[in-house]
């Protein structure tokens, strides 16, 4: 079973992160992910360039490749789902692509779709992994706050991050207990058992949240968000990095579209 989020604290090394503002990284990564996800797969030369750009960022960041590969494994269920449809859906009369070595053929458009899903998911995971690996979570939260994400969201993401491991571990323990002691019941019973576990998990989370909430108020919490993670002032070179990345992405799209037509 995969944990809800893996703890990335040890994944990245510090040096490159000290030279770039986390706000810049968040903006650049989100821009990259948006642009590549919105690129149609027909303009495939773009994806080669995106890949090169992502590789460059990975090398620069000195993130451990093993950790990155493990994160790439997260896309497996998604890819498996689309791959299944490639295998199951019979090709139309004129869009079959023969499978080498067999008499079978698979649907061409679905094969292209699979390629598109794999390419986009891989690029997204690599790009989004970098800020998580390079900066501590409070700094990323602080960046989101500085980038004007609604206060409520910043607050909730913070609490969620704090408690998701706790509740995830709790859920794992409960599953273990069920598998060890629960009877092999019929499906209805099994669903109700998981329901009861979910209910118990809710009560534990709810009562913990009540305690935490009252304790915070007792210590003077008034709903304002104070994150103990200072950011440097936003400098000209920070803006320059964003402009540079945006320009590179624009160039890739223009060039890639032209190359695809030719």
């Amino acid at each position, binding site marked *: *079973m995969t944990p*809800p*989020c893996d703890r990335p604290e040890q994944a990245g090394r510090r040096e490159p992160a000290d030279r770039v503002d986390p706000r810049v990284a968040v903006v650049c990564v989100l821009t990259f*992910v948006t642009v590549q*996800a*919105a690129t*149609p*797969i027909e303009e495939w030369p773009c994806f080669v360039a995106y890949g090169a750009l992502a590789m460059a960022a990975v090398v620069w960041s000195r993130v451990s490749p093993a950790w990155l590969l493990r994160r790439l494994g*997260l*896309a497996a269920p*998604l890819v498996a789902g689309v791959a299944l449809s490639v295998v199951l859906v019979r090709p139309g009369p004129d869009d079959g692509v023969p499978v080498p070595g067999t008499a079978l053929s698979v649907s061409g458009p679905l094969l292209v779709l699979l390629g*598109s*899903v794999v390419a*986009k*998911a891989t690029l*997204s*995971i690599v790009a*989004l992994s970098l800020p*998580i690996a390079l900066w501590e979570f409070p700094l990323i939260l602080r960046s989101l706050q500085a980038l004007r994400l*609604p206060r*409520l*969201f910043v*607050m*909730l*993401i*913070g*609490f*969620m991050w*704090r*408690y998701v491991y706790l*509740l*995830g571990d709790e*859920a794992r323990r409960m*599953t273990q207990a069920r598998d060890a002691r629960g009877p092999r019941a019929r*499906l209805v019973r*099994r*669903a*109700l058992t*998981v*329901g*009861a*576990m*979910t*209910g*118990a*998990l*809710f*009560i534990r*989370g*709810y*009562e*913990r*949240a*009540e305690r*935490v*909430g009252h304790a*915070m108020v007792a210590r003077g*919490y*008034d*709903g304002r968000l104070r994150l103990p993670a200072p950011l440097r002032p936003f400098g000209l070179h920070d803006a320059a990095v964003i402009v540079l990345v945006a320009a590179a992405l624009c160039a890739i799209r223009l060039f890639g579209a032209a190359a695809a037509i030719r």
Partner: protein
Amino acid sequence: MHIPDGLINDPRVWLGADVVAAAAVGYAVRRESRRLRPEEAPLMGVMAAFVFAGQMFQVPVGAGVSGHLLGALLAAALLGPWRATIVMALVIGVQCLMHADGGWTALGLNIVNMGLAGTLGGFVVHGALRALLPGRPGVLVGGFVGAWVSVVLGAALIGAELLLTGQPDMAGPARALVVAHVPIGLLEGGITVGALGVVLKARPDVLGLAATAVRGPQPGAAEEAR
């Protein structure tokens, strides 16, 4: 049920879903930012973590396949529709950004299909049944039917989105998707009823019902649960 990038290619469809999702979530954030008392802030964050962790519970269905809770209707029954909307949007957003579970351009689609379909669509049915059947039966029947509606409605929305892309031969897959989700919805209903049953026993005040037996009602708990 997570839609990846590139599956629904028509920008009009995914941008439209982005607009719908942004409008609903934006309204929910505006509304709840004003109403949230300071001590309730951790509650919503913990609830997002709860939906995340609750989705880790797998129900073995057989033949190596297992299903898990979606949780949108459960969250709406426990927190109210607008808070649940925020929580589900957050969970789906984090799944998209940290897990690549669902695409970034499909985020709006996924929030509509898996979040709003339950927190607003399923909740309407849930609320109507709770109004018809007061007390515990209303919670349980409303929970089951609401959860079933949320899953089937979500699948129907995905089907409609596939049809809207204008690609040919999408009617068959779209119909198959809805049919496949009729039993999946029953599973969601079963899990939801099990969870609500425990909450009814342990903390009925969360659901706005008077506490029975040992635990006395907490001050302010009734309006907190809504």
